[in-house]
């Protein structure tokens, strides 16, 4: 005799989570002034339609296209040179901080206190490097030392250097330790343990992560121009400001091609790793690309009059940070958090809806169409979405919400579709064959198998979106970024320092929470 299945044992936690979620979201609407009705407002559609109608025909003026070509190469070159710098910075940081090479891990010996202190200090530096978003680094370099592509390269180098350092260290930590331990017990040095014990196993993962970062760097470098750091972003900034639709659409097309190209190269290089001597070709190609990039950028750097000696004075001006603006900071921080939360939730809903056709559930035509839409949503960087969204819902944090929702929907939609495709379809099929409706079969047969993964992806994206929300203000979409941009424009360095500290704290807090949460899940 089968006993009736007990009631859902997780009902109380589930209800609690749902209520908490709603409770957290409610103030977000008022904080971000996000009113879905604005989207239905004929006036804003009219504004938007006027702007979009201006997209056609694409601008194909000779001198403009020449500018676009030049700035596109600069964008690629800045990203490549920036990643090279980031690797040069990240590798030693990882070597110093990774727990995989610690004495007490390898051989249960006690670590010296001074060594531990030194490592914590280096980790602190890494938190600062990656806690400040790359576009804020670029803005700081632009203000401190001059315009041009050098600030973009330095910004990518520093921000991604901190990130690569952390991830390289984690990759080394995740490798099996036996070999390194054995070497260490034989009296091998740290270097030898790394080179012979960890390096060979970790290499594919290290390379593939670096290539992925290069891909991100291209997207980042494409928007650096918004703060005066060169590349296609600079042209786009001007075209958007002047509401020149034809130029905007040409540039958008270039953007999408760039993103597509970088994904293609990234895929190829990952395949290359699997082939014999592929790594060698990859190394050669990479070095060649870096040299070519630096050669391309060098004349611009020489002319720009970039002044490294101005940086110490610039930093000196930041102290002491302005302590009297706590209320402003709290408001900016709340606005930033609300923007990211609301944007992520909306993206989750949109992604779930779009993932169904994208996973091929409604025929191949809809699959193709929805995949194209997802690629478009994902290919356009959030900052760019934000500058377009201000037209639809007006200036302010509401535009930030919309921008985050659109870009994140593209990212999540693709991931959701992939999980749907990879999921085990037997439970759903069994339900279908026993006469259950299509919707119910999906809800009880397939959804439970993918849902926890969807939530995990979404939370990870939210973490990312909090960081992005801090900078959307640079294009007029509210949050801490807007205040920082203004403070730096008016030479109010003490204020700027407080804002940067707030950004750092927020980013650090999110990282800690997310790590704690992941450990809890595992």
């Amino acid at each position, binding site marked *: 005799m089968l006993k009736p299945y007990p009631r859902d044992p997780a009902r109380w936690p589930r209800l609690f989570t749902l209520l908490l979620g709603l409770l957290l979201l409610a103030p977000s609407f008022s904080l971000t002034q996000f009113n879905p009705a604005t989207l239905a407002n004929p006036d804003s559609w009219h504004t938007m339609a006027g702007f979009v109608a201006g997209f056609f025909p694409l601008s194909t003026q000779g001198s403009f296209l020449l500018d676009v070509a030049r700035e596109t190469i600069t964008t690629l070159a800045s990203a490549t040179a920036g990643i090279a710098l980031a690797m040069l910075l990240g590798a030693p940081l990882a070597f110093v901080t990774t727990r995989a090479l610690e004495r007490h891990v390898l051989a249960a010996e006690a670590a010296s206190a001074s060594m531990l202190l030194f490592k914590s200090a280096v980790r602190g530096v890494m938190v600062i490097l990656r806690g400040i978003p790359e576009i804020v680094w670029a803005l700081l370099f632009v203000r401190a030392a001059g315009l041009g592509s050098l600030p973009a390269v330095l910004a990518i180098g520093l921000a991604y250097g901190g990130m690569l350092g952390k991830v390289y260290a984690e990759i080394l930590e995740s490798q099996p330790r036996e070999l390194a331990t054995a070497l260490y017990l034989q009296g091998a040095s740290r270097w030898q343990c790394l080179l012979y014990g960890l390096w060979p196993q970790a290499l594919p993962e290290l390379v593939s992560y670096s290539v992925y970062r290069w891909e991100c760097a291209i997207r980042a470098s494409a928007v650096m121009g918004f703060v005066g750091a060169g590349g296609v972003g600079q042209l786009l900034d001007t075209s958007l400001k002047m509401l020149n639709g034809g130029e905007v659409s040409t540039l958008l097309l270039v953007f999408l091609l760039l993103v597509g190209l970088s994904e293609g190269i990234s895929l190829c290089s990952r395949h290359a790793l699997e082939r014999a001597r592929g790594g060698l070709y990859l190394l050669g190609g990479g070095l060649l690309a870096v040299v070519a990039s630096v050669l391309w950028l060098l004349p611009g750097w020489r002319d720009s009059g970039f002044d490294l000696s101005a940086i110490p004075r610039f930093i000196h001006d930041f102290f002491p940070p302005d302590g009297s603006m706590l209320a402003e900071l709290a408001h900016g921080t709340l606005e930033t958090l609300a923007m990211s939360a609301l944007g992520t939730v909306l993206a989750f809903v949109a992604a779930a809806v779009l993932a169904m056709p994208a996973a091929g559930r409604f025929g191949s035509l809809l699959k193709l169409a929805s995949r194209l839409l997802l690629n478009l949503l994902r290919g356009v960087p959030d900052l760019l979405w934000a500058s377009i969204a201000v037209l639809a819902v007006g200036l302010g944090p509401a535009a930030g919400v919309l921008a985050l929702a659109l870009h994140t929907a593209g990212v999540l939609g693709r991931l959701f579709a992939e999980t749907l495709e990879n999921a085990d379809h037997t439970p759903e099929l069994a339900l279908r064959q026993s006469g259950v409706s299509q919707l119910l079969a999906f809800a009880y047969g397939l959804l439970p198998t993918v849902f926890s993964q969807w939530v995990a992806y979404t939370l990870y994206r939210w973490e990312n979106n909090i960081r992005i929300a801090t900078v959307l203000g640079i294009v007029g979409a509210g949050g801490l970024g807007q205040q920082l941009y*203004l403070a730096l424009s008016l*030479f109010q360095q003490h204020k700027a320092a407080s804002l940067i500290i707030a950004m750092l704290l927020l980013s650090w807090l999110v990282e800690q929470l997310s790590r704690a949460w992941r450990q809890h899940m595992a």
Partner: protein
Amino acid sequence: MKTLKLSLATALLAISALASAEEAVLKVSAIPDEAPTELQRKFAPLGQYLEKQLGMKVQFVPVTDYAAVVTALNSDKIDMAWLGGFTFVQASLHGKVVPLVQREEDSRFTSKFIVNAAVGAKSLKDLKGKSFAFGSASSTSGHLMPRYFLQKEGIKPETFFKNVAYSGAHDATVAWVASGKVDAGALNASVWDKLVESGKVDSSKVKLLATSPAFYDYNWTVRGNLDKKLQERISAAFLKLDPKNPQDKAILDLQRASRFIPTKADNYKGIESAAEAAGLLK
């Protein structure tokens, strides 16, 4: 040994030649208060004129950021810049700079408040709860003075308007108001007049709401350590531009100047106190 000395001497010569070649270039920039292409177009004939008058190469360095022009001038990266009243005050607070000349119009400059026709506002007070765009945060006639005069009317922009935005440039403000991206905005009177005269403003969409009282604005400023003789020659070249001479008139028209007159730092004391009152200086 001899060859070594010889090559050393040649190298030294080459270096000094390079250095002197560098000295013979006057690097000029301007705050980007209009679209970059417009700035280049406006400067080209003036640059050629200055080259002829000074007998040296004049290079225009395009900059997309107001604050960067101030920083560049203060750190001797450029020799001369077209500054607004507020950027001049910022530059003189951060280093030594010398204002040379201004347009005659700059001694009685004004800002214009404009509004999207659909809003139906008749006075500044009607803009309560609307969105409002200044130009660049560092602009005198697009931000500082409009803010100062609003304040005098008892209007604090951040609480009075629904949203305050910065379009970045005067012509962008007009485009934003015309498109409905913002309800109203403030800009430089001279750019407004130019856009109206050239028919680039759709008067059915954008209405003039108010004009501010007059104040001192733009000037041509050089870095403080630029050769005094050269400073005088630059001033003289500007002052010599004669509206009765057709060639000079073309240059003056592009600058929207009837003629250039000498200026001094004291002219901008009013701007400095307005900036202090508006809370835009530290």
